[in-house]
């Protein structure tokens, strides 16, 4: 059994760990509120963008010559996967959940005999993926310096993707991120952004629009923007999810540390009591023998 001194030290160290996790939880909670707000405020933009594109693609006359970003290259050989993770750890299952989702998708693609290319956004995803898929990662982007997710960063990623698409480096692009549902639930998502997947909600509105300039030109300008917007949305959802996940992870850690302190204190008191009792018995039996 550990000596009294050892127990005392352990209790002190667990207590200071608890202090740290508690502080991290508070910080995460404060950041979460902000991140959640900006995620919610960012939703109208991406929704509106989606709506306009939907209306446009419904109205497009010449489906054959539709921009490639909308209709795809017509092939399905090279898949580009953009895995968006965080730059910091200690946030529970946040990163592993995205990676798990991405990995299962990767193995499906590879089993189908297709080519896989990966772009990682955020260093944690890169760390976890490079062991197995190191040769597939073509780019690693990290925004450690940026405090909050901002559109400028998202636009940078978007431009990289579009450049690669125009150079014919891939046919299909999917992004992986965590969608923020609430503090305890974040759902890992795989969203195809090139070609645009509009099959789910086809609202055949008869509304006819006037276009200025014509549809094709608007679309070819709008689609690259949409990519950046979708990535920005993913980044916002991700940062809210990250803080939420960190908050619940740190909450658990604080609780566990508390339980541990209780257990150790009981053990400490017991062994202290035992030592006292032992000493008393020794004195009493010594006195009796006289």
């Amino acid at each position: 059994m550990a000596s009294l001194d050892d127990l005392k030290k352990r209790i002190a160290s667990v207590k200071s760990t608890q202090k740290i996790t508690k502080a991290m939880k508070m910080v995460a909670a404060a950041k979460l509120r902000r991140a959640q707000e900006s995620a919610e405020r960012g939703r109208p933009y991406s929704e509106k963008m989606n709506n306009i594109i939907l209306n446009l693609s419904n109205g497009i006359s010449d489906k054959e010559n539709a921009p490639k970003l909308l209709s795809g290259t017509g092939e399905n050989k090279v898949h580009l996967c953009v895995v968006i993770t965080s730059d910091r750890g200690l946030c529970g299952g946040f990163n592993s959940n995205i990676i798990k989702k991405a990995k299962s998708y990767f193995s499906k693609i590879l089993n189908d005999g297709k080519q896989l290319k990966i772009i990682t956004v955020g260093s944690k995803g890169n760390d976890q993926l490079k062991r197995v898929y190191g040769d597939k990662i073509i780019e690693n982007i990290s925004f450690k310096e940026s405090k909050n997710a901002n559109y400028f960063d998202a636009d940078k990623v978007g431009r990289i993707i579009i450049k690669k698409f125009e150079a014919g480096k891939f046919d299909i692009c999917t992004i992986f991120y965590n969608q923020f549902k609430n503090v305890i639930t974040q759902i890992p998502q795989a969203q195809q952004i090139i070609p645009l997947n509009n099959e789910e909600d086809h609202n055949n509105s008869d509304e006819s629009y006037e276009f200025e300039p014509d549809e094709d030109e608007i679309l070819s300008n709008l689609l690259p923007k949409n990519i950046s917007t979708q990535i920005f949305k993913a980044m916002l959802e991700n940062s809210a999810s990250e803080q939420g996940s960190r908050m619940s992870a740190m909450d658990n850690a604080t609780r566990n540390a508390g339980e541990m302190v209780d257990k150790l204190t009981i053990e400490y008191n017991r062994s202290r009591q035992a030592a006292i009792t032992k000493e008393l018995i020794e004195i009493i039996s010594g006195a009796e023998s006289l």
Partner: protein
Amino acid sequence: MSEEFKIEIVNPEKSFLVKEDVLEVVVPAFEGEMGILKDHISIISFLKPGIIKVFSKSGDENYYVEDGIIEFKNNNLSILTSAIFSVTDLDKSKQGDLLKKAEAEASKSEISDQAKYLADQKVEVLRSIN
């Protein structure tokens, strides 16, 4: 009959402006300035750098935009833009920053004609705000 319609300006970060009592909006569309009144036909168009003028019952406002898309439908005008500033909030230093950026962009040699045109537009509009 009321002559008002609804305008909503959103940027990626948030809903920038929502107004229900708008009488007329003039937007710098790609092929020239365009005024929008109530019951305009449904339209989708692009913006080039310029000034959005919003005339409403509760006062007139001007906004400087660098790009954007507008959609008008059922008397709802949505403007999506990534860079928008209220002209009244645009103080000298900020305006100078934007102008410098635009000038730097316009003076680049290896950019496409369209990008050059847009950058020149930015410079022109920013200079005219004074």
